[in-house]
């Protein structure tokens, strides 16, 4: 990817997502902004309850946004939009879900599951053409076209996740939101699905938003990573930079907790525990700063000075 000619595919500006009303109001995402470039894999990492999935769902317009804007290829796609734009966005942004056991319609056969999007967006398409596309999508994800006449329960977890991927591929999307696509899978199957995702990216020039809690997988697959905690992004950087110089204490805690398959390093490992009360933000509110090129972090004056000192080392 050429550094200077990077085209922004998706822009999120000051996104806020709220659940409930009045006294029960809960702000799940608090003013999040980021850009995703064309052809990259952007990672969103955080623990349960951090709002990472909510952001993904808000981009694909499952959850409404209470404030802020989302631009896809320069066009605003949140709120009220024209029917034509709605149709094109539905087609070009697709999602892969976490649990392949729960995200497939159990009463439908695979051919319908995979073709459903086509039926909705291109109802005029002749049946033969549709069937052809279904078997193409299935073979692309490494499944046999004969599987089209089977039900989801006849497949293993890894195969089901492939069906989920085929279902989003058939729409010929440009942007795929993958929400913990491998968390529910076994170790040996994970590698298969990760390889499939990166193969498809190379062949089709896809852009991914990869949502996960597992930083070791992120390191392998993502170009840039944003770390999110309680609805706020605390740090965003290129993957290598984030792993080399994690600055925010929360990022450091997350990194220190990654289990490594190496008994020697595990024995000597020092856990960093993140205590949110360490920040003194009452008088000195935090700001979002680009502390070194393409490395953003959230902090107040004093913290930023510490971070700079650490980088200078």
């Amino acid at each position: 990817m050429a550094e200077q000619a990077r085209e922004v595919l998706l822009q999120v500006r000051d996104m806020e997502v709220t659940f409930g009303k009045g006294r029960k109001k809960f702000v799940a995402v608090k003013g999040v902004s980021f850009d995703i470039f064309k052809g990259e894999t952007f990672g969103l990492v955080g623990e349960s309850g951090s709002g990472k999935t909510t952001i993904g769902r808000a981009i694909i317009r499952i959850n409404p946004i209470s404030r802020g804007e989302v631009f896809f290829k320069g066009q605003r796609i949140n709120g009220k939009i024209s029917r034509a734009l709605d149709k094109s966005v539905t087609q070009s942004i697709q999602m892969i879900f976490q649990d392949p056991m729960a995200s497939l319609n159990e009463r439908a056969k695979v051919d319908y599951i995979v073709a459903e999007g086509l039926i909705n967006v291109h109802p005029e398409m002749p049946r033969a053409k549709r069937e052809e596309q279904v078997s193409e999508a299935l073979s692309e994800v490494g499944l046999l076209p004969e599987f089209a006449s089977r039900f989801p329960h006849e497949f293993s977890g890894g195969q089901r996740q492939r069906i989920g991927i085929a279902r989003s591929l058939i729409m010929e999307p440009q942007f795929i939101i993958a929400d913990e696509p491998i968390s529910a899978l076994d170790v040996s199957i994970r590698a298969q699905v990760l390889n499939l995702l990166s193969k498809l990216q190379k062949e089709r020039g896809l852009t991914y938003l990869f949502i996960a809690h597992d930083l070791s997988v992120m390191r392998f697959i993502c170009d840039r990573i944003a770390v999110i905690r309680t609805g706020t992004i605390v740090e965003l950087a290129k993957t290598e930079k984030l792993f080399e110089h994690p600055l925010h204490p929360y990022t450091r805690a997350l990194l220190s907790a990654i289990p490594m398959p190496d008994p020697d390093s595990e024995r000597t490992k020092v856990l960093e525990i993140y205590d949110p009360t360490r920040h003194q933000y009452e008088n000195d509110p935090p700001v979002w700063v680009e502390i070194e090129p393409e490395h953003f972090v959230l902090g107040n004056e004093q913290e930023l000075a510490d971070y700079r000192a650490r980088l200078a080392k």
Partner: protein
Amino acid sequence: MENKEIILSVRDLNVKFSLRGKVLHAIRGIGMDLYKGESLAIVGESGSGKSVLTKNFIGLLDNNGWIDSGEILYYGMDPQHPVDLAKLKTDEEWRDIRGKHVAMVMQDPMTSLNPLKTIGWQIGEALKLHQNLRGEAARKKAIDILSDVGIPEPERRYSQYPHEFSGGMRQRVVIAIAMACNPRILVCDEPTTALDVTIQAQILHLIKELKEKYALTTIYITHDLGVVANVADRIAVMYAGDIVEVGCADEVFYDPRHPYTWALLSSLPQLGIKGRDLYSIKGTPPNLFHPIRGDAFAARNPQALKIDFLHRPPYFEISATHKARTWLLDPRAPKVDPPEHIKNIRNIRKNMTGGQCNG
């Protein structure tokens, strides 16, 4: 190693299930020893039989399953006269063992607690049954245990309900209940799979602390090799109802011998190189409804030998503590190179000292 006392010994265990009129052979002739005070990790994919194996130690096999043959000898009651756990049938027979000698921490803290009873009541139940403590004495003990497992403000937490606890705290409560029975062996079935990474690290740390403090023997069941590296003295790798490789943590990580262990380690994203494909195991595990001929992993092993499809390999010893079930270790076998990753790991630790496990 020789002077270590065996606390539990499994001998040629076969477990079968009856499912939809067919018989599934879930555990295919496993033999293993558990030493007093060690922590053993059982690693395998879902369906490899790792949970089924340990459920036999506590008598919680599902109703459609049975022990077909074999013995599980428990030496914890009387070292001279072991109890054969495989012979126990009714709950009455199990009552002396379950909890008091072998306790279990389940995977999901959301479902293993009773939502209608307070935390204190649930710990008290175990105290009443196993230590015959009641009333104020039980309450005191329960609060002690709660602070032991790292729950802040145990007095206030004592009378709260499970829904008032976070996932990590709930798992601590589950551990507290297991500890209330004062067990000798603690079986942790995927204790951290449902938890966040930072919480996972804390819970693993807690279990290690308790193990030291109460001289527990622990068994971890997990599919996460990272977790294993953190907690295990010894590792047993399971595939298709059989232990294919067993050894000290260092031996299995730095000098693995079975092709399945190679494959498992190579497919970890932690060891992958960015931009290149991860090593992935082809195909899916074998169907245990059908009898397995030869080495169960042969069909997925690109370097399988002819004999792998015909005869089941015996264990070959690599060191006093390390053995693997693969024909590759037979002196007559051709030399097969392990994948690149594994060679790299080996080079880091060339001078391995076999025969000694930490812990």
